[in-house]
């Protein structure tokens, strides 16, 4: 009897079809993920002139990326691991790499979706308009920032097995990132000063601050500075460290 195994490409195509279908059927939760940054964007309408369109958009995109990596990705992985969905896939002739690539491509689509949603809502709700180059570079920076939060999500599911504990941990990190990140860096903005300059400086180089900074500069590429380069390198560095921890510690099954 001849042994037939599917090509990598065909296996990936099948996994992607299934994963996209599952994501589509979960569209309510996708809408909820999109709502948070869009609502913040609309509620900050009065601050656009004071903070600048790039600052407002980049904050909202960073919050959206946080939601995808922490709330969306890590909880979905924890749930599927606990239900044994990965174990069932792994006994089929398909590589573990393909299983994860398919999941990550779904998240890439989500990153693009949330970024575009913020661009569109920013234009129609707050009248924020950037150059085409700005939108394009910001989209690329969003992908880099998204990688950081996916890495963080991976680290959480790598270090924590229980899905309820993963859910609690991601909510906590998400909340801290939103509150300290969003308001902390305003201390650095000078005019508003909410949590003070020290917190502002810490937030600036935190996983929240570096992503917000590169997305913000991406929207106005002409303002790229050495700080932006450091932020970009830190974004990649954080992503690599978090992903490395998450992959090293990750177990495909939550039972043993």
């Amino acid at each position, binding site marked *: *009897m001849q*042994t037939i195994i599917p090509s990598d490409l065909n296996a990936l195509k099948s996994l992607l079809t299934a994963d996209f279908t599952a994501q589509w*059927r979960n569209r309510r939760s996708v809408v909820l993920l999109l709502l948070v940054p869009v609502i913040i964007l609309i509620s900050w309408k009065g601050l656009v002139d004071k903070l600048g369109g790039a600052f407002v958009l980049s904050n909202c995109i960073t919050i959206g990326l946080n939601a995808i990596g922490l709330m969306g990705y890590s909880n979905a992985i924890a749930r599927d691991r606990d239900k*044994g969905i990965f174990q069932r896939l792994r*006994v089929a*002739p*398909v590589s573990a790499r393909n299983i994860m690539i398919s999941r990550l491509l779904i998240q890439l689509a989500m990153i693009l979706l949330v970024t575009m949603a913020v661009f569109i809502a920013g234009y129609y709700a707050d009248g924020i308009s950037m150059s085409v180059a700005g939108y394009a570079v910001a989209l690329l920076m969003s992908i880099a920032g998204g990688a950081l939060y996916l890495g963080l999500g991976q680290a959480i599911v790598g270090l924590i097995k229980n899905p309820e504990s993963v859910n609690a941990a991601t909510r906590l990190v998400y909340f801290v990132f939103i509150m300290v990140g969003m308001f902390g860096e305003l201390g650095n903005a000078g005019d508003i000063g909410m949590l003070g300059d020290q917190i502002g400086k810490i937030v600036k180089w935190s996983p929240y601050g570096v992503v917000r900074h590169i997305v913000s500069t991406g929207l106005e590429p002409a303002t790229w500075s050495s700080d932006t380069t450091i932020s970009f390198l830190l974004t990649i560095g954080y992503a690599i460290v978090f992903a490395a921890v998450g992959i090293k510690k990750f177990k495909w*099954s939550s039972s*043993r």
Partner: protein
Amino acid sequence: MQTNPSAPILQVDQLNVFYGKFQAVKDVSFSVTPGEIFGLLGPNGAGKTSTLSSIEGLIIPDSGTITVAGFNNREKPLHARANMGVQLQSTNFQPELTVAEIIRLYASLHAVDLSKERLQDILNNIQLGDASKKRFGQLSGGQQQRVSLVIAMIHEPQIVLLDEPTTGLDPQSRRQLWVRMEGLKAKGHAILLTTHSMEEAEAVCDRIAIIDHGKVIAIDTPDALITKHRDDPEVIAASRRGKITLEDVFIGLTGTAVRS
């Protein structure tokens, strides 16, 4: 690739699995031949699942070799998995997908081209002809079990691994599964089955390995095991109605203490 029809389709040699310092599987060896239903029996924590998971490639054993259809499952994992069908213990498909979508997914992962008509035939065959658009989670336990078995068999594998397949099923569903297993055997497929049901093991298995504390302590046909151990004092002590059954032999060999 397997060429000799009488050669074992599954060969497990000197398998050892450790979890930290705890040895879950100790030098386990056995083989399963085409058309054979082989039962792996043991109390909770005996090492059945670790053995099965090693064969499935879900855990990496510390030593020993496993060959499926001639393929070493560590050197050629995808080839080994392509030759086996697996039904795991628990429900494990994406709950958002329909029955038809799940069957299509696994067919394609096994490079099986599944036409619409063929899919409907499969569903009709398992009495789920009108359930193709139902989500897996909406099916009853027996229906889920039938879908799982269909998926395990979608690529006509040379060996099917069934991990406690009748747990939680009503007697009708259990009998139906036994008939399906015998149908597979008649077509030359080998089956490796783990179960806690001695009735099931006696009813369907050609050979049985009893595993305890990680070791294979007995391996033979159900009748031969009963004949061989019927005079053991522990087996006689375990007998409740005078007639020695496979369960008496099992209790006699593994002890009466309840395992965690």
